[in-house]
């Protein structure tokens, strides 16, 4: 009996020690990151992680925050909302993260946000643009613009800059981001006097879009708007060209990935998408960031990398101003962020915990991404 008790005690102590294994040392501040390092939107997670790592390294090299080093813990959610919830729970309850950064995809941020809110841990989403995300509670922030603005930008771009009057929509019905962006685009575009020729839908993970495209082709649109992610976006453009649909195809920031051009190839020529920054921008901040990123990773950073970098800097700036790692203090400091000069523009957090900033439209010309125009809020 005593022996059993002894073993049990040893096991319990062992388990306690193990559970503290991922925890912070005295001179470290733990920040959790969850992202899609694998799965259908793998480049989102990888780029964000690269950008964020770069920001953390810079801060640590400059002496850290509150005299302590930042330690970044990363969990992969495999591009699945349910995994995002698990990853965030683990980061908060087991590892003891003081703040969390993630996700790019709105559906995954929406799955994780309530957990951060309930635990009183501030969450900063680098790139989720669906308005619902920050409505989950006062601990949830983002450093990007939201879809009502992005939809408006794209609708104005289509109507004014491209002179389009008749546009068809092909959206991902199982994706909060895609459905939201399609709705906001339609509202503005119809408000301006344009017409939505037809609407079709698909689901993330589909590979065959010919039936939908054939139906859209029958409606004779001047352009097709495809709010969705890059894998499906590129396949849709490719199949549209195979069906001889030569009109411009327009996407949102979900298209911003090096994989877009890799999969879509020449078919993408004459398509446009909105995003958060352009790597060929001549702004000093952007140039500096692109150079450092290229040195470290040997590739051109996309918007998710830039937003990951900005999210890291803004969070560390807030912790410094808060003067402590208490959740409520960091939350108040984040909410008070005004005029922060980031790579993706000047960031001020508004009363709904969203960032107000400009959007960039990028054109695909000869298989290359080219800066087209910037649209202010």
């Amino acid at each position, binding site marked *: 009996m005593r022996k059993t008790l002894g073993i049990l005690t040893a096991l319990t102590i062992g388990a306690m020690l193990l559970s503290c294994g991922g925890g912070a040392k005295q001179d470290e501040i733990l920040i959790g990151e969850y992202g899609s390092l*694998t*799965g*259908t939107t*793998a480049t989102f997670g990888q780029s964000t992680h690269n950008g964020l790592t770069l920001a953390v390294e810079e801060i640590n090299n400059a002496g850290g925050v509150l005299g302590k080093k930042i330690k970044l813990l990363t969990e992969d959610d*495999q591009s699945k909302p349910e995994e995002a919830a698990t990853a965030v729970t683990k980061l908060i309850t087991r590892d003891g993260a003081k703040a969390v950064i993630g996700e790019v995809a709105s559906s995954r941020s929406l799955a994780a946000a309530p957990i951060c809110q309930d635990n009183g841990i501030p969450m900063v989403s680098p790139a989720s643009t669906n308005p619902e995300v920050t409505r989950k509670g006062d601990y949830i922030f983002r450093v990007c613009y939201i879809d009502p603005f992005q939809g408006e930008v794209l609708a104005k771009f289509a109507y004014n800059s491209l002179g389009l009057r008749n546009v068809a929509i092909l959206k991902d*019905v199982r994706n909060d981001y895609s459905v939201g962006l399609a709705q906001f685009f339609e509202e503005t575009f119809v408000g301006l006097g344009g017409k939505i020729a037809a609407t*079709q*839908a*698909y*689901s993330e993970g*589909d*590979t*065959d879009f*010919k*039936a*939908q495209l*054939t*139906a859209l*082709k*029958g409606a004779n649109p001047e352009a097709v708007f495809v709010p969705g992610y890059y*894998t499906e976006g590129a*396949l849709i453009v*490719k199949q549209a060209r*195979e*069906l*001889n649909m030569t009109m411009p195809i327009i996407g949102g920031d979900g298209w911003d990935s090096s*994989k877009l051009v*890799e*999969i879509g190839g020449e078919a993408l020529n004459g398509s446009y998408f909105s995003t958060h920054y352009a790597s060929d921008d001549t702004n000093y901040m952007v140039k500096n960031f692109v150079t450092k990123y290229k040195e470290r990773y040997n590739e051109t950073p996309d918007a998710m990398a830039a937003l990951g970098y900005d999210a890291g800097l803004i969070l560390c700036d807030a912790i410094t101003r808060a003067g402590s790692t208490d959740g409520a203090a960091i939350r108040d400091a984040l909410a008070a962020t005004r005029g922060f000069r980031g790579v993706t523009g000047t960031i001020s957090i508004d009363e709904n915990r969203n960032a107000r900033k400009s959007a960039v439209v990028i054109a695909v010309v000869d298989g290359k991404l080219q800066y087209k125009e910037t649209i202010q809020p």
Partner: protein
Amino acid sequence: MSELLQQIINGISLGSIYALIALGYTMIYGILRFINFAHGDVFMVGAFIGFYLAPRIKALFGGSLLIATPVVFLIAMIGCSLLGVTIEKLAYRPLRPQPKLTVLITAIGVSLFLEFGGQLVFGPDPKLFPTLIPSSTVINTQNLVVGSNSIAVIVTALVLMLLLRFVVYNTKIGTAMRAVSYNHRAASLMGINIDTVISFTFVLGSSLAAAAAILYASVYPSINPLMGIFPGLKAFVAAVLGGIGNLAGAALGGLIIGLTETFVVGYISPTFRDAIAFSILILILLFKPSGIMGKDEPEKV
């Protein structure tokens, strides 16, 4: 009218791929009386063999697709045949005297093994399949656009199906296959080596799956280790719809599923894309379990 014609072309091209996979299900069922649920994952492995080989083979033949593409097809088909035969030898053969349910559950196990083993080996993120069939527009009228992709899919599928028909009905091993499917014991009494015939059936089925995979990946060039699940399930439905165990039935079933899916997506709602195949499965099991071309065979209890 033009839209309808275009949708029919889209549907036939998708359906031909389902038909090729369905043939594998139906042949193995015909011989062994069980559903090889790992078939869809053999299809996936075929696509990955193509993915890794195509750039090397293209380089070998100086970028000439005319020679490189058939070579990629051939190697993927051989690779999948080996995989199919190995699976049968290691997983199914030792269980042959056991109840069919045991083999069925083993097949599900093999399927999961290939899917998640594939994630480990190939990596879980989608990969871009290299171009093997140059995409150009062959027919282009006001009403109808037919690309080289669709034509290649339909023609290849047709040629392979005719080839299969020839093997099954006009060769010695084909006669042996048919004999085994009627009665294992009687066939073995006639001096037919059952093991060889079963292995050969797996060779045929798996190589058709590999060919289907290369076609599928050429038309929809994003591949991942879980890509076999849905085409596999739909081909299974196609095999049941046509009458499982019946070759012509599997081909017909594949075309019907492909066309129905395309019509439902194009004219009703894309959210029903996956639901429609399974609704068909339920209906056929309720009203004509033997399928369109199958014979009624009361199960002996």
